[in-house]
């Protein structure tokens, strides 16, 4: 009662509770407002939903290509050239360790001497080789990985490359190398195009929120006049953006599921004809959640941008 009598307003605890309450209320009211105008809300959701769904579908397709080509070519192998000063005994230990790895099917050591003999035999240059004082060739390990996708092969090559015993890694299968590059290119292109589409969607959303700020100009002026902070005036619009974003993310997940559902029967039939036991993989719960989160983030950012620029201009005169 004493704080009230002095006109100081609410205590800190009650202040926090009411701050929380205003958040809940802003969240509830902005969602409610959107659901009261379902058509225009759906259109706004679609703008973001489509911008998210297209790149997401392409990424899912690239993942499927990667996965479905895993182990198609059983001859895939790495050649690991060891450091020049490696002793043969150490090389043998290293090979034994490699063979223990779960992602390695076989690992075979080609000692430097044998490599030189084979080289001489293969090239017919034994006379030249005989004149050499030292063997210029290192010990080499031929590694056959278990069946895995192109991206995983590229990762494994990087792992080998980081090993201190290894001086150079060569992946012997050209088409795998090409596929790795092509998939990586496809992925980056999709990220770039997806980012541009998201920026477009973000600007469209920000414009929608700008229009809502305009429509509520009178209300904003009044609440600022009676002492509302910028944060208080901003809160409902941030939630509006968040809901648009989350709605867009849900729509995007739905679109990706729908597209893959349409594609699945013919693709799975094709796989069956190739005697593969694999099936087309969808977005998955994690992928869907990611889309919703990205959507929410984009919505929040667009509201942040719109309020930062336009809410400041709505000042009582």
């Amino acid at each position, binding site marked *: 009662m004493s704080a*009230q009598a002095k*006109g100081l*307003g*609410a205590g800190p605890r*009650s*202040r926090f*509770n*009411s*701050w929380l*309450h*205003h958040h809940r209320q802003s969240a509830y009211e902005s969602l409610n407002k959107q659901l009261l105008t379902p058509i225009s809300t759906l259109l706004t959701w679609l703008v973001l939903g489509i911008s998210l769904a297209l790149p997401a579908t392409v990424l899912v397709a690239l993942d499927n290509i990667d996965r479905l080509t895993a182990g198609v070519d059983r001859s895939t192998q790495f050649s690991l050239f060891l450091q020049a000063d490696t002793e043969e005994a150490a090389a043998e230990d290293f090979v034994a360790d490699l063979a223990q790895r779960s992602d390695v099917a076989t690992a075979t050591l080609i000692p430097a001497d044998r490599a030189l003999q084979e080289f001489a035999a293969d090239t017919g240059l034994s006379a030249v080789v005989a004149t050499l004082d030292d063997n210029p060739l290192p010990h080499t390990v031929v590694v056959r990985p278990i069946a895995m996708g192109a991206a995983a092969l590229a990762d494994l090559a990087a792992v080998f490359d980081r090993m201190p015993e290894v001086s150079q890694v060569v992946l012997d299968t050209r088409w795998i190398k090409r596929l790795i590059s092509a998939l990586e290119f496809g992925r980056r292109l999709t990220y770039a195009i997806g980012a541009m589409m998201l920026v477009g969607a973000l600007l469209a959303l920000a414009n929608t929120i700008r229009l809502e700020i305009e429509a509520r100009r*009178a*209300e904003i002026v*009044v*609440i*600022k*006049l*009676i*002492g*509302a*902070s*910028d944060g*208080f005036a901003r809160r409902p619009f941030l939630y509006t953006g968040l809901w648009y974003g989350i709605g867009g993310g849900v729509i995007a997940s739905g679109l990706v599921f729908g597209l893959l559902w349409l594609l699945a029967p013919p693709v799975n039939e094709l796989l069956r004809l190739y005697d593969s036991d694999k099936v087309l993989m969808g977005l998955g719960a994690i992928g869907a959640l990611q889309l919703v989160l990205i959507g929410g983030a984009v919505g929040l950012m667009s509201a942040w941008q719109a309020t930062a620029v336009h809410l400041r201009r709505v000042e*009582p*005169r």
Partner: protein
Amino acid sequence: MIEFKRVSKRYESHDALRDISLTIDTGEMAFITGHSGAGKSTLLRLLLLLDRPSSGELSVNQRPTSAIKRRGIAAYRRNFGIVFQDHQLLFDRSVFDNVALPLVIAGFGRRDVNRRARAALDKVGLLDREGANPASLSGGEQQRVGIARAVVARPRILIADEPTGNLDPDLSAEIMELFRAFNRVGVTVLIASHDLALISRMRHRIITLHEGRLIEGEGR
């Protein structure tokens, strides 16, 4: 205490206020009058930091307002209750929600909000209309809702700009009585009005402006 020290306000080439020095004590009730365009609204707008003086200093409770930056304005305005000529109610929500708004902004808990908003509505005699839309009320009732909203957070200073401008004489007198009642419980009240007949009957200080100059009632 509100203190204007040699305050001027210039709009482009036009002087809206010229060299105003004026003190209004805590707990006082005073009227600002003058012809249309005399500078009454400008004076109140400077006090609410809706605009800044071109020169001079304006202090509230010994605190110079020139020290208040943009971020501090919202908290500063919460010291005031404001009544507008056109009431400025929000028609997208109920009478109760309009009155409760300053409490929500000030961060009161839900229970306090309910209790205080009802008490304020009771004081202006509109408790039975709390669920109504303000658009459905008469002009006098709307102005009373505006007053309830202005006093609900128990501000120390009540500001009104032509609060009876749109009302007939009976309703105007009723509204003025309401302001007086708040003044009696210690609220500083400052009302701009050009209705001399009404305010001269009320025996409170009358501050008269003429073409931006203070010509009467400057106080100590």
